[in-house]
């Protein structure tokens, strides 16, 4: 059968019918090819019949067709999320797949649909191999295959197929936007972070960013991979608007009820709070600088956000959200007590407060995640570590370094981590792992330029960069750890764990008919 003849059949206006006819032919050809190879392989007729009919039940096709994804990455849709097996597959394979993606991002190697599909396929099959009773594996795989195919089609194909309806829609939207100033106003409000998003976003993850955070972009990307929208909260402007247009401007008022309600907290399924001390994402001091010009978001503000979101959800009669708080749990809440004599209280750490009062808050300790990597690198040559940083901050950073090293080593002793870390002493001379972490990424890069050739001679040398964007600015050949990527991965893994346990669920929404 000559399939190409079909492109000449019918009127060009009805592209949809043309595509359906084309797929009919492809289905017949595929059926015929399968029968041909079964016959060539001399497979007995009864076995061949069973093989041909495997997984052709209408419900399998129906399940597979639910993967109407606009792109594989953006598309694990609610049908998959809502199935227990699908959820397990996604939460298990996503972690692995995402790890692969991140590795590729770090390696500056773009991830193509081929690689995504191969990774997903291998992981899903590997997972399915654990037991045989997993009837949903094949529709998931076939559906993902169809989704990958979707991503391979140029957008113009779908534009042509749905031409008439698209044109009608575009025209209607366009005319309405032109005619009604209120519509234009709404768009402007969206751009400026003032739009009321309540009930308009759908299942979403809320991320409190502040002025900036190196993990924000990757986190948005990762949640979009799962088909979830993200509502971000920023102090003043949202430089990631093109990635995620749903955002609220906070003007440093993170607990404002109106802001949170309009940020669609009703449909949220989780919240992520990114605390950072100015440019310090790791090694922040025990006592935070609460002056707003230096602080993106303090622990005090983060606690306020947790309480505010919880209060609003309670008022709405909704279950409390799970919050993922990215901070240094060893940081202390600054309290002064006015009384005569010494006060009989100790300052509590944020970690202790969360442990005691907030079971729905999950701490992500980026310092420990980063130092796990550093410990691994140091252990390869059995080197003690030293920190190179801005001259005026050496003392402050040393104290933070001492605390996080102690915390890491405590975990090693408890059997939770491997490889203890030793801070270099004068006896170690130049035989050290020199870690460069300046006050900000620009300082780090300048310090790397100034010291790399001297400090790497006898020991080893590594730069710590906060923002994934800045990695390319490092001199060629310098090894680095990217805190933004580690932070995003840490949050995402915590989220995936809760999801796999069924503690985070999508709200049930009635599909409109």
């Amino acid at each position, binding site marked *: 059968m000559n399939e190409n003849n079909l492109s000449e059949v019918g009127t060009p206006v009805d592209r949809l019918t043309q595509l359906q006819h084309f797929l009919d032919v492809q289905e017949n050809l595929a059926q015929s090819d399968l029968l041909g190879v079964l016959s060539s*392989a001399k497979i007995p007729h009864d076995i061949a019949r069973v093989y041909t009919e495997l997984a052709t039940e209408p419900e399998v096709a129906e399940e597979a067709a639910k993967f109407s994804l606009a792109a594989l990455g953006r598309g694990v849709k609610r049908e998959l999320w809502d199935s227990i097996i699908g959820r397990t597959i996604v939460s298990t394979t996503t972690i692995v797949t995402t790890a692969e993606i991140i590795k590729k991002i770090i390696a500056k190697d773009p991830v193509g649909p081929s690689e995504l599909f191969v990774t997903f396929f291998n992981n899903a099959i590997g997972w399915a191999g654990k037991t045989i009773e997993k009837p949903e594996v094949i529709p998931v795989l076939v559906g993902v295959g169809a989704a990958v195919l979707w991503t391979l089609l140029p957008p113009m194909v779908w534009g042509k197929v749905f031409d008439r309806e698209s044109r009608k829609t575009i025209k209607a939207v366009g005319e309405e936007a032109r005619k009604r100033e209120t519509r234009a106003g709404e768009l402007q409000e969206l751009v400026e972070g003032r739009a009321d998003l309540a009930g308009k976003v759908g299942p979403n993850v809320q991320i409190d960013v502040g002025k900036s955070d190196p993990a924000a972009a990757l986190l948005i990307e990762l949640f979009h991979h799962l088909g979830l929208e993200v509502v971000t909260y920023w102090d003043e402007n949202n430089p990631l608007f093109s990635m995620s247009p749903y955002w609220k401007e906070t003007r440093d008022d993170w607990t404002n009820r109106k802001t949170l309600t309009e940020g669609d907290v009703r449909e949220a399924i989780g919240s992520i709070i990114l605390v950072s001390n100015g440019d310090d994402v790791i090694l922040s001091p025990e006592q935070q600088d609460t002056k707003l010009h230096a602080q993106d978001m303090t622990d005090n503000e983060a606690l306020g956000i947790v309480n505010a979101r919880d209060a609003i959800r309670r008022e709405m009669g909704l279950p409390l959200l799970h919050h993922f708080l990215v901070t240094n749990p060893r940081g202390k809440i600054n309290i002064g007590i006015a009384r005569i004599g010494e006060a009989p209280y100790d300052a509590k750490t944020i970690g202790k407060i969360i442990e005691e009062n907030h079971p729905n808050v999950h701490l992500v300790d980026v310092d420990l995640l980063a130092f796990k990597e550093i410990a691994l690198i140091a252990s390869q040559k059995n080197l003690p570590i030293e920190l190179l940083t801005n001259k005026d901050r050496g003392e402050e950073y040393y104290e933070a370094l001492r605390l996080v090293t102690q915390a890491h080593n405590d975990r090693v002793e408890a059997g939770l981590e491997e490889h203890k870390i030793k801070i270099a002493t004068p006896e170690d001379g130049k035989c050290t792992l020199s870690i460069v972490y300046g006050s900000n990424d620009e300082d780090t890069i300048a310090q790397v330029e100034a010291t790399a050739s001297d400090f790497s001679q006898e020991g080893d040398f590594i730069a710590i960069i906060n923002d994934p964007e800045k990695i390319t600015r490092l001199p060629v050949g310098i090894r680095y750890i990217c805190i933004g990527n580690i932070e995003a991965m840490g949050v995402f893994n915590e989220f995936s764990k809760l999801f796999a346990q069924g503690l985070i669920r999508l709200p049930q929404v009635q599909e409109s008919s």
Partner: protein
Amino acid sequence: MNTQQLNEHKIMAQISRVILLRIKTVIIQHLKKEDIAELEQVMKEKNINLVLNFAHKKIPQLSQKIYSEIELLAQKITQSI
């Protein structure tokens, strides 16, 4: 579902059926003769997961081969419109 969603759904269902057939064909095409007898044993369970696992173990880079089929189908669709 609106008409467009319904149409998309129908197309995805049809594409899925073609992909399933292509996956099955790729598996048979790439199995060695000595594996066929073993496949017949696996087939007695009438379980597609077992077949997939079997094929995954026997055929190197099965996923890449299936991806190539998907890519080919996408090219054909693009050319047909």
